[in-house]
């Protein structure tokens, strides 16, 4: 439970800035999805990759702890 909470907290903290890159330009009346630029792609990529990596690490750590 504690580990799941930690993983969720971590994923949220990492994903939040990445997800904020999505959405609409406020000036765009047609509300077309905003085109993601290289800097935003970099943040999103890093956020998703970190979450995946962190999840794998925590799961592997759990396995090591349970098997010794």
């Amino acid at each position: 439970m504690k580990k799941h909470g930690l993983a969720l907290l971590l994923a949220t903290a990492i994903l939040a800035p990445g997800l904020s890159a999505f959405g609409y330009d406020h000036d765009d009346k047609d509300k077309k999805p905003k085109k993601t630029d290289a800097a935003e792609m970099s943040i999103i990529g890093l956020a998703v990759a970190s979450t995946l990596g962190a999840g794998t690490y925590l799961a592997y750590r759990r396995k090591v702890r349970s098997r010794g």
Partner: protein
Amino acid sequence: MPNSSILTAPERTAGWHFLEGVNRGMIRLRREPAITVFALSFIVICLDYILAPGLNAFTPVLSYGLLVVLLLRGSPHAESGQPPASLGRWRVLFFLLLHSILVAGFLVWQGVNTPVRNEAALPAPAATLAKYLVLLPTIVLLPMAAWRNLNRLYRAEFVAAAIALLSFFPHRLFLMAWPWYSQILGRVVHELSRPFVAGLQYVPFPSPTLMGPHLDVTILFLCSGLQAIKLFQLLFGLILIVDWAFLNRRRTLAAYFGGLGFMLLANVLRIALLFVIGNHVAAGPVVEYHVTGGWIFFTVAFCLYLLVTYRWLLGKEASSRLESR
């Protein structure tokens, strides 16, 4: 707060564990001057960063933050036989004064320079100097004898924080090295791809370019591997924080630098694979998805590195301690 003597083990919730952890942390904060000193410095440098972002204090914030967490995650040292050094009021005031002078000095410099030269950021050498200057006031918080004692007790934590300070998110270092590193990267990718792509041509300048029958690949700064390094440093930082008490310190140091090298090699392999797949299988999807694919590739590379090194990092003694918890 629930009474620990009344609750049985299964009734102890995550919230109870969290409160217990916070309580333990607060006790250690009072008993161990190192934690108090660096927690205070961390808070003040965060304020510096908020008040004067141009002071380039992001890495010091990261470094001190990591240091405080590692000190809290490590074994308590209050019972080491030495009386704890007190944090004198005058020392704290002098420390705050030094930080105020630093921030005020920078803001005055910015106020003078922005209208005249339209420059709000420090020149590169001054920015690097500022990064280290914000760390210096911490020294006045304790007498030298106490620092010597702390250096003996917490050497591993200090080394970890210093490495984080010097090497985390090395954007400027990559920019500096890019003119010659791009050439090495281009040459290595060329040599790796040559056996698999017939008629491959290599143009080293202005940016290294591999020209194939169906797809040409130009190696830009974005392909330098900096993203892979950032990902590795974030995840390795997480390993340090979670497992600090169980890690073999020397092996951890070796695994950190080994991992940086491994991620740079993974980047070389990524570019070579993109070029080979683009010329043999499908050029369109490679062009379209190479950035996303790169992140997946780096994640897989990190996971492989973790699988190979993790048990070795823990060592036999720590593995058995982990098992018994």
